[in-house]
Structures are given as C-alpha cells and as structure tokens.
C-alpha cells in the first residue's frame, strides 16, 4: 500500500472529527471528536515516518498521545465540575464567556 492511502484516510478521519465538533453540543462528545482529530494527526505522523524511513515521527506520535491524555484528563475534570454545579451540559448554553 502506498503512503498516500494512509494520509488520505487520516485527512478523512480529521474531517469527520471536525464535523462532529461542529455538529454536536454535548461536551463529552466534543472531547471524543477532539480525540478523533488527534488520532488522525497521529496516523499522518506515523505514515510520514514510514515514508521517510525514520523513527522520529513515531516519537512525535507518542508525545501527541501524552498531550491528548492530559487534555482528556482536564476536559473530563471540567465536565465533572460543570455537572457538580448543576449547570447544563450543553456548549450552546454555557456561553457566558462569549463577548
């Protein structure tokens, strides 16, 4: 399989994730779609690392994984905090920061 297939698949997955973020309003699902986009980026990184024949892209992918795990932890913490304060779990209703 040529590397092109992997990169096109990764851009397709990225587009699906972006579509989910635009479409959904539950913060949990938006975090899941962020995961989709980060994983699409990971797939592109690993594919390019295979294309060049160099393992450094895989180290990048692992660092992206670590950052994604941190983002999940903070995001889920925020969701639990929102839920505890009985605010609505809907990103369209949590709009106090919007100017």
């Amino acid at each position, binding site marked *: 399989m040529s590397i092109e297939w992997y990169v096109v698949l990764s851009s397709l997955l990225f587009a*699906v994730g972006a579509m989910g973020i635009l479409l959904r309003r539950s913060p949990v699902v938006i975090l899941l779609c962020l995961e989709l986009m980060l994983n699409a980026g990971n797939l592109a990184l690993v594919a390019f690392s295979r294309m060049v024949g160099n393992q450094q892209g895989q180290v990048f992918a692992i660092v992206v994984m670590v950052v994604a795990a941190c983002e999940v*932890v903070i995001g889920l913490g925020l969701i*639990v905090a929102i839920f505890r304060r009985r605010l609505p779990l809907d990103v369209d209703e949590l709009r106090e920061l919007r100017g």
Partner: protein
Amino acid sequence: MEEVLFFAAAIGALGGAIGVVAMRNPFYSVLALIVHLFSLAVLFLLLSSAFVAAAQVVVYAGAVMVLYVFVVAYVGGGEESAWESIPGQQFIAPLLGIALFVELAIAVLASSLLALGQEGPHVNPGFGDPAAIGTLLLEKFLVPFEASSILLLLAAVGAIVLAGRRVPERASGAGSPGTPREREPGDPAPDAHPAEVPIR
C-alpha cells in the same frame, strides 16, 4: 494480504469515527471510539510501528476510554436538546466537514512529494519496536520526554483541583478557592443529587 488488512482497518476506523459523531447516546459514542482506536492500532502495525500500536491499545483503548466510560456513567448519557442556536447547523456542519476533507485531499494529492506514491523505503525488522523508540526517547528526545512527564503530573494535579470534592463550608474560610458557589434560587435543592452530599 496487506491491502485486505488495510481496507478492513480503514473501514473499521472510518465506521468508528462516524459512529462517534452519529450516535445520540454518549455511551455508544465511547464504544464506537474504542472500535476506531483498535482499527488505528492495526493501521499502525501495518506501518511497521509496533510500539505506537501497543501504546495506542494500552493507553488509549485501555486507560483513557475507561476514564470516559466512568465520566459518562457519572454524568449520565443525556440526550441533546433539539434546540439549535445556529439555524441550519445540522446541514452546514456536514458541508463544512466535506469541504475540509476535499481541501485536505487536494493538498495531499497535489503535493510534489514523490515518495507519497510509494510504499516507503525498506526498513529493518527492528523499525519502530520498543527498543528503538526507547533509545530515541531517552537519548535524542530526553528533554521533550521529561517535559511530557511534567505535563502529565500537572494534568493530574489540575484534574484533582477541578473535579475534587469540595471541602465543607465550616472547614474553609470565605472567599478561598475551595468555597462552594452560592446556590442560586433556580437551582434544585441540595438533596436532589446525592453525589454532591459529603460523606463525612
């Protein structure tokens, strides 16, 4: 054989991704994401990066997804309201997604990278195995490695600060960060939600 595996994993990854977006219940979205992550691990194996695939399964499909399942079970998989703040959001969002994919595909296919159309150079059997990645991480990328470990520690502390149980009011002075927010008149009674009541 490689083509069969690639297309099976690609269909799994794509189906999982669409399932995440399309499922109305967040619990099913999490399950679809697990399918997506396993398919991605197969793709990583096809790209001869064994360690990333193993980390994907162990870290993502194992640990992170358990976290998601716990939070969805705690918060409850509520249905989204049908109210749209942006008129026509259900139609504009897929159009924008398709436009983004077309743009990315043009950028990939029209790029002048000749190596994109090939399978990549021949690599040794040790390419991407844990020993090679570990050597790279601990020798060439030591500073990013340590920085990411500090980032993980900060994230753990931040999650405890954000979501930890608030101290009861008698224990904390007024205005301190641990003080619970004043209840507004519209809020439900404190007894309505047993998880909020301190155990002590």
